[in-house]
């Protein structure tokens, strides 16, 4: 799947991300929201809270909990996907929640919940990592205190070459796939999965490649957040006299 000139199926170089844009605050009703486009992926994230938790018995006396729902809409893939949560979606919801939890200062809001809703509108590989990237932006938009944003990207092995940010084809027919999420400023990893075969050397180089990608995505996240609020700050400054 790697062409003779070293390009990938979609024309990218091995260490190149898909074109990525993030929009912040796209939903009025939600406390925080974000839309990410990463290649053909298109994912909306809405954050509600911190808010009262029902049923009450789930509440923790010393901190907030995060509830996360990752869901793919029926038209997000070529073959209709049943809207009911699948085993995969339930697992991804948990994995994404656990990737976000270390970043959020949960002890600020005991007994409450922070709800993260992720709707995948169009899927083309790497939706879990794109969801994490967008969800952390939406959390920041909601005014929730966080140690750092969380940024995620996958690396994989295709025809023996390590490649960054797999798309659907590379994910399906490649030899390995390793999603990584981290808090870039703090340099701490919050999610590390791998499937396929990696030698120790490949794993080390793959992780390094993922970190490079994460640093680039982190800049995109920061720019998206600042853009929304620099226009708000301008509005505040405009004055009315």
């Amino acid at each position, binding site marked *: 799947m790697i062409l003779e000139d070293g390009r990938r199926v979609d024309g990218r170089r091995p260490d190149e991300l898909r074109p990525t844009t993030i929009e912040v605050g796209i939903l009025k009703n939600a406390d925080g929201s974000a839309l990410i486009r990463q290649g053909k992926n298109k994912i909306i994230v809405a954050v509600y809270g911190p808010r009262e938790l029902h049923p009450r018995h789930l509440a923790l006396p010393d901190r907030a909990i995060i509830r996360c729902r990752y869901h793919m809409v029926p038209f997000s893939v070529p073959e209709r996907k049943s809207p009911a949560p699948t085993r995969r979606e339930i697992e991804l919801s948990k994995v994404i929640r656990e990737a976000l939890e270390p970043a959020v200062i949960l002890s600020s809001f005991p007994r409450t919940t922070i709800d993260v809703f992720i709707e995948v509108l169009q899927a083309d590989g790497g939706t879990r990592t794109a969801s994490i990237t967008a969800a952390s932006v939406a959390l920041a938009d909601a005014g929730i205190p966080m140690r750092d944003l969380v940024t995620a990207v996958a690396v994989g092995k295709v025809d023996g070459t390590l490649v960054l940010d797999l798309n659907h084809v590379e994910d399906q027919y490649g030899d390995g796939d390793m999603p990584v999420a981290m808090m870039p*400023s703090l340099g701490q990893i919050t999610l590390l999965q791998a499937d396929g075969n990696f030698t120790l050397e490949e794993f080390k180089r793959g992780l390094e490649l993922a970190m490079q990608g994460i640093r680039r995505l982190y800049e995109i996240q920061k720019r998206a957040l600042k853009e929304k609020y620099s226009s708000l*700050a301008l509005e505040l400054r405009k004055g009315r006299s």
Partner: protein
Amino acid sequence: MPIFFKSGSIVLPGDVIAEGNYRASEGVTRTDNKYISLYLGILRIGKSGSLSVIPFKHIYVPEVGDIVVGKVRDVGVTSWLIDINSPYPAVLQLSEALSKPIDVTKVDLRQYLDIGDVIVAKVIEFDYLRDPMLTIKESRLGRVTEGLLLEFQPFLVYKVLESRLKLIEEVKSKLKCDIIVGKNGRVVVMGAKDRLLRVVDVLMMIFEDFSAGSTERIRKYISKLRD
């Protein structure tokens, strides 16, 4: 010991604001020698080296002594449940609302406060383990019978309470009305009658215009007002 941002610039969660010896105030945490922002907001550097970040979206958490504007959400047998624009709903006990005891088996609490009523109340107890308790048994507290309810971002209200209370006092005396600023971001205007639009206009300036020289400009505007 460098500071990496200017006072007043926008910072994000995870941004390293400074390294060295400063004081981490609201919205800033210290790990090792680094000062890290917790919020998406505006950085403020105090004269004594205190670093704080004012979030763009402030989540109101009650504190004992706060004056808040609440809406009645539910009526219980001996208490009311009040929405105070916070993750924690507040409770108003019967004993904190009425001066003398009543027989709850005979009287419906709805005749005192019903769902949807707006009240001005004070937080008398909150420790995170239980929901905050309110009282309306003080002067200037109680049900709002007429007027207009405005909502602002709680962080704007903080800024106003910090530096612009005088302007509000001036508006009150100039336009002969009563304005109550709740810490939870809600503001009530009472007794303004036909001057209401003008009051709202000035309040929008006070709460939303924080550009350079705006305080002086608003003061001048207020001094020209006549009722």
